[in-house]
């Protein structure tokens, strides 16, 4: 079935167009983004259960962007009376005028920017889904997830709990300007199974597995395979040891490959950082940043994942950008205002945490291309190293291209064979061009994961997905 576009947004669209026209009398450019995204979150464990109709991406509200005299301003709100667009326009003018009064008193200079283009465009997208979160059979889902938790408690050795969580959201967004009318509706779902058990040093070891994709609550049933995988993961972790720090040959499984794509490189080519002079990547366009085996794509069109939208939060159509082509940095990604300031075309990467937040250049799907090696050959090629599995977290460093990835566990490889020894956790650090330059093998398969969220600095959380094949490289582990 097609995910139907929001009747609420449909109903207020004429009034929002009137609001754009009303504000157009005072401002040279006006856009409005309105959202109406419903969903659920279910959390099941042996200790507590919960159901909520709120998630990181559920929302209903609008944000107006206006432009005049080289300045961009925004006003976000979630109270709207379609019968009083003049009143809302007056409220917006009053709020922004009050801000300008303060800015003028403070002697604030303006970062002058040109006017956004407003070429005529109409788009209506309703993506396919098997189920909708708002009409899903929650009773069956709660029963299924409770069954997963119960099963995990029986099979995971020493488990103190098995936690199963699922979130599904039906995203509906409407973008309007004087000349544009874009509407999209799609559903994404993510689910996870996690367990923890005592380690051998009296600590607690945590294991996590997830599924996700552009689709409805039907995706949650995929957790069964993850529940089946948990016992081995937990056993590996509880028997693990700290790693001896040093530089090693490593193989990254697709989840860790994705973490590197995202943290090591993805943030570094978000081009709003170029505008601020915050990204080293600006100096490397056209230069080598990785080995010939490194090709990386970024864009909402790259994968049918949790972030496979048709247009971004500024009304730019989704893209598929080749950022690195056989080791050479070709370009970055860009929101519309940053693109205007840099004199380039936007790439469809302007995203907001929700309607009430500012647009920044953000990642969507960040994915390394596959190669032609087999995992077996990659393991056989390593004398002393690790197969790294399970991403915990990472932190970007666009200015200096440092890399910090915290990885759940590493499987020791000696003389071309897995020894069975496990280390955890593993902190991977290094300098991005060195790490990517050391990529010497890539597997023929690939996977894209979309669980979790990405911040810009330490805030502004949005959904992203990343992945790629198994990669062999060198890195410092600690």
């Amino acid at each position: 079935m097609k995910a139907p576009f929001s009747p609420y947004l449909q109903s207020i669209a004429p009034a929002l167009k009137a609001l754009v026209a009303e504000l157009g009398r005072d401002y040279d450019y006006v856009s409005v983004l309105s959202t109406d995204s419903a969903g659920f979150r279910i959390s099941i464990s042996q200790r507590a259960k919960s159901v909520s109709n709120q998630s990181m991406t559920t929302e209903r509200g609008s944000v107006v962007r206006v432009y005049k005299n080289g300045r961009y301003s925004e006003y976000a709100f979630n109270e709207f009376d379609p019968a009083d667009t003049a009143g809302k326009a007056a409220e917006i003018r009053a709020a922004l005028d009050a801000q300008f009064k303060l800015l003028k008193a403070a002697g604030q200079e303006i970062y002058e920017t040109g006017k956004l283009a407003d070429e005529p465009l109409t788009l209506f997208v309703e993506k396919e889904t098997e189920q909708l979160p708002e009409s899903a059979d929650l009773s069956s889902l709660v029963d299924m997830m409770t069954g997963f938790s119960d099963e995990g408690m029986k099979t995971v050795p020493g488990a103190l709990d098995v936690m199963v969580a699922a979130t599904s959201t039906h995203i509906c967004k409407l973008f309007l300007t004087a000349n544009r009318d874009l509407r999209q509706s799609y559903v994404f779902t993510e689910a996870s199974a996690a367990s923890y058990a005592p380690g051998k040093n009296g600590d607690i070891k945590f294991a996590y597995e997830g599924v996700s994709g552009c689709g409805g609550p039907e995706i949650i049933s995929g957790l069964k395979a993850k529940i089946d995988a948990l016992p081995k993961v937990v056993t590996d972790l509880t028997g693990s040891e700290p790693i001896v720090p040093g530089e090693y040959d490593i193989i990254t499984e697709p989840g860790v490959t994705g973490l590197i794509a995202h943290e090591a490189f993805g943030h570094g080519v978000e081009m709003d950082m170029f505008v601020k002079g915050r990204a080293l990547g600006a100096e490397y366009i056209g230069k080598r940043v990785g080995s010939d085996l490194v090709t990386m794509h970024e864009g909402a069109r790259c994968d049918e994942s949790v972030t496979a939208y048709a247009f971004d939060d500024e009304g730019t159509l989704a893209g598929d950008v080749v950022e690195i082509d056989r080791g050479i940095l070709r370009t970055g990604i860009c929101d519309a205002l940053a693109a205007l300031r840099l004199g380039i075309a936007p790439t469809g990467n302007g995203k907001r945490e929700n309607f009430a937040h500012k647009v920044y250049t953000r990642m969507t799907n960040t994915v390394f291309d596959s190669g032609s090696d087999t995992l077996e050959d990659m393991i056989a090629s390593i004398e002393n190293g690790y197969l790294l599995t399970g991403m915990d977290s990472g932190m970007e460093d666009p200015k200096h291209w440092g890399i910090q990835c915290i990885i759940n566990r590493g499987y020791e490889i000696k003389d071309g064979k897995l020894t069975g020894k496990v280390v955890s956790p593993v902190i991977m650090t290094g300098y991005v061009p060195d790490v990517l330059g050391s990529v010497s093998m890539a597997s023929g398969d690939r996977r894209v994961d979309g669980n979790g969220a990405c911040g810009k600095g330490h805030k502004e959380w949005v959904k992203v997905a990343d992945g790629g094949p198994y990669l062999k490289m060198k890195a410092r582990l600690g």
Partner: protein
Amino acid sequence: MMFDLIRNKLNALGCEAWEMTETNETRWEFYQIGHKLDQNRAVKLSGTEVKVYVKSADGQFLGSALDTISPTATEAEIDAALAKLTYQASLVKNPYYTLTDRPVQTAGADGAGSGSSKDCPVDIAAIAGDFLKVFSSIPESDIRRLNSTEIFVSGICKHFANSRGVECEYIYPSSELEVIVNAKKDGHEVELYRIYHSGKCDSKRLTDDICRVMGFGEDRLSAVPTPKLGSFDVLFSTSDACEIYEYFADKMHADFIVRKISDWKIGKSICPDAKGDLITLRALPSLPNSSKNYPVDREGCEVYDRYLIRGGIAENYCGSRQFSQYLGLEKSSLLTNLEVEGGSKSEAELRSGDYLEIVEFSDFQVDSMGGDIAGEIRLGYLHRGGTVTIVTGGSISGSMNEAMKDMSFSKERVQYDNRLIPAVTLLKGLRVTGVE
């Protein structure tokens, strides 16, 4: 009006219990590139979060479901949302517990105050103006400068009520700043990142800290790669140290106890073989200019002054109504502000001998569940053999479960938003992976 409408409908539902919180927020945001305005934004939001509780037929279980009613919702949409919540709550089976029935006082503390939730008296324009003045007065030079800043100032009005007669309204300011600092010399440029939270603008404290960070930036320009140090003592003297004390606070959460993530028992030592300073941790309803100065937690439970840990002995758990009651605690609340008492030595005494002081990480983390310590070093000062070397790169790792056995912290203290902690904290024997 929306509040009363929803409350009346909840009362008519006939469910076991309910709670609701109406939030009205007005926010001003200013984004600057250098000292030029990138964008200004104003935000006006309202909404009512509603939680419906349903008891199982045998009275053994209580389920709940949560939603936010949009201010644009029609009466029919509210009715449908409440019916849906009632059904969803019936699917959830948690051991029975009750909501709070303790009346609360909402006398304001440092910016928080009572009042009508539609009438938000926080002067966000004045607070935002103070932040703008700070940024325009920071001393800069050819070497050190502000790259970009983001200012967020909110006035937040909350109105809470539940089915057991608890009702309160309170108002508080909340500010967030992102500050990016650059240092540049001889074509080499570095960046430092800070995010600050507070109630209002404390101009002096903010100016002092940004200037200190700029000093770090200049130092980083001359940093050399961190040597491989192996097991080494590490000193924390910035807000990163809050992560260390969060570990102790998390271990005292009722949630962690019920879930068996923590085995710390009331009246028992949290670390029987500790030979360093003993932790004293206190939950407080307010701290000066904290962004978390509110009289009740999100469940309407009064936030009150009590020790979580005193002299290394676990004294009180904190946490949600549900998990606290599972531990037999009738009175509890979620943590808002936290104070850590100073240690036995001065900062100067702790700064003797060999140690690595790290003032910039990529992202310093202490995993509350496993106790793992991790962080990539962006700037550190290696004190060894009477000399100080500025270092960058490499990482530290270790375990709080081990480090807490012999940790030291200073008598002097410093406040970071809602955390008042020792000015310096020394963890011994962490693993330091260098880049040489």
